[in-house]
């Protein structure tokens, strides 16, 4: 099986991912080169949404489950970091727990909290499918959204400012460049994890069930628990992205978890391409940059934006990744994973 040709095509599979990471890794140099630190801020936003969109695609593209509550998980991750930092700054314990501004504690806390909530939300939502799944996840998203607004102690409507200095263990990551690379490492890990998951036994069950549930049951597998696990994994990774957003911009607000933001995440995934693991990362980059460029151009930017998205999705069936795929998988002769 290990012919040189297969090894080569295996390597080729990783080229797009490595190119994306390399291009992102170079942005701080460009920012330094032209002396515009704003670029790093944008790049950090791209990376954070790339993590969330990649995570979402695990359930949308591979599980066939279009979730509209992922902004909720994103916000939950952000609020866990923000609330812990608030208690740290105000030196007031959260029940019996001390607050913290250390991501080495706050990130695992965000993972734990989001996993528990996602398990409950998933267990209920996955009783339904299709449009009902869409509606019920949307309802959950709005519960989280209004839940965040109700947190009067933590800013309510106005959002929660992080006033303490965010660290990662002994490392001060409040430096914009350092934080960017931290986020980039998390994106690389996310791409690696999701990439392994979708090709594993778990991934095969998830993918088969998304296209033909009857077949999966007939061979002896109940897809329910696999979908739930995928949902929780996806939610947790999205919460990590939200935690990074909050830590990076020292701020989290209910706006970051509105249902329209859930829609944005789906658009990023579809725009980039749900058929490949690295597609949504490209979609996130295109989304964030387009939003920025167009909104500086015209106040009616959303109209142009919508038009562009329609054009791209209609002309490239597999999203922007199709552009890359025609370049990278030419002559490889191997069928792309669907």
């Amino acid at each position: 099986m290990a012919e040189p040709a297969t090894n080569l095509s295996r390597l080729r599979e990783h080229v797009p991912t490595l190119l994306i990471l390399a291009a992102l890794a170079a942005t701080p140099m460009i920012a330094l080169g032209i002396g515009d630190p704003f670029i790093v801020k944008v790049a950090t936003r791209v990376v954070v949404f790339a993590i969330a969109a990649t995570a979402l695609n695990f359930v949308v593209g591979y599980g066939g489950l279009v979730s509209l509550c992922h902004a909720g998980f994103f916000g939950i991750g952000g609020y866990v970091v923000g609330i812990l930092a608030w208690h740290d700054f105000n030196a007031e314990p959260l029940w019996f727990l001390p607050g913290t501004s250390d991501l080495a504690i706050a990130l695992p806390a965000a993972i734990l909290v989001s996993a528990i909530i996602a398990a409950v939300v998933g267990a209920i939502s996955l009783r339904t499918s299709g449009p009902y799944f869409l509606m019920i996840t949307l309802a959950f998203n709005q519960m989280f959204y209004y839940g965040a607004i109700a947190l009067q102690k933590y800013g309510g409507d106005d959002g929660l400012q992080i006033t303490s200095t965010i660290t990662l263990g002994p490392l001060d990551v409040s430096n914009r460049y350092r934080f960017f690379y931290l986020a980039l490492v998390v994106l690389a890990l996310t791409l690696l994890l999701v990439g392994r998951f979708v090709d594993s036994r778990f991934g095969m069950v998830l993918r088969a069930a998304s296209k033909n549930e009857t077949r999966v049951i007939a061979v002896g597998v109940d897809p329910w628990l696999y979908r739930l696990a995928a949902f929780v994994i996806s939610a947790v990774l999205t919460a990590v992205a939200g935690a990074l957003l909050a830590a990076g911009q020292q701020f989290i607000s209910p706006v970051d978890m509105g249902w329209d933001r859930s829609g944005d995440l789906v658009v990023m995934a579809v725009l980039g391409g749900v058929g490949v693991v690295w597609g949504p990362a490209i979609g996130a980059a295109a989304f964030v940059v387009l939003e920025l460029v167009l909104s500086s151009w015209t106040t009616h930017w959303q109209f142009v934006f919508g038009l562009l998205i329609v054009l791209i999705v209609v002309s490239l069936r597999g999203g922007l990744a199709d552009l890359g795929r025609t370049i990278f998988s030419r002559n490889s002769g191997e069928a792309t994973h669907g």
Partner: protein
Amino acid sequence: MADVILLVDRLMKSFGGLRATNDLSLEVQRGECHAIIGPNGAGKTTFISQLQGMLAPDSGTITLNGRDITGEPAHRRARLGIARSFQITSLVPDFSVLDHAALAVQARSGHSFRFWKNARRDPALVAPAQEAVETVGLASRAKTLARDLSHGEARQLELAIAIAQQPKLLLLDEPMAGMGRKDGVAMTELLAQLKKDYSIILIEHDMQAVFSLADRISVLVAGHIIKTGAPEVIRTDPDVRAAYLGH
């Protein structure tokens, strides 16, 4: 009685006012190929669905290898050894032929909460899957996606998946449905091979195939089995001829 693999006792299933399965009792011996024939709408597929577990009967019991499985869901029955090939092909369009068989192998080798190793490069899955694919004669199409298969090939794949499950009982729901003459003959030969290794319940409209393959035949009319017997007995039975063969 000692070697009964499947025992169906007074099975009932209604859809509204329609009695699709009406007091159906059946006994399948281990190792036999038991054909079920009957006119269109007799309730053959409904019956198979209840055996597989996709449909729950209103009453009656199904016993597999001495174990009551009436309350077991379909996925657990598959683990207990029931494999079904669907009348209307049920495949995953963007999975290759080999992927399908590998999924069946994977399903019978414990849980699939394994996240790291690439399933398509796992010899423990690929080797048995390859074997099943070869058995049905699809070896040359192993890497072809299901959506690119011809109708006949898709039927063969249905069988490969069932075989890869290493079942104790094969439920074949019209394996030759929609096949041309040539493919049909090839399929009959394949089934003749398979019946050496498996207990089979065969539903088929192609009477030539049924009479050449079946060890015993049951005739299903309006959800009820009116006769069970050897092919030569069934062929000449006056009740059967009246009800089904139309003479």
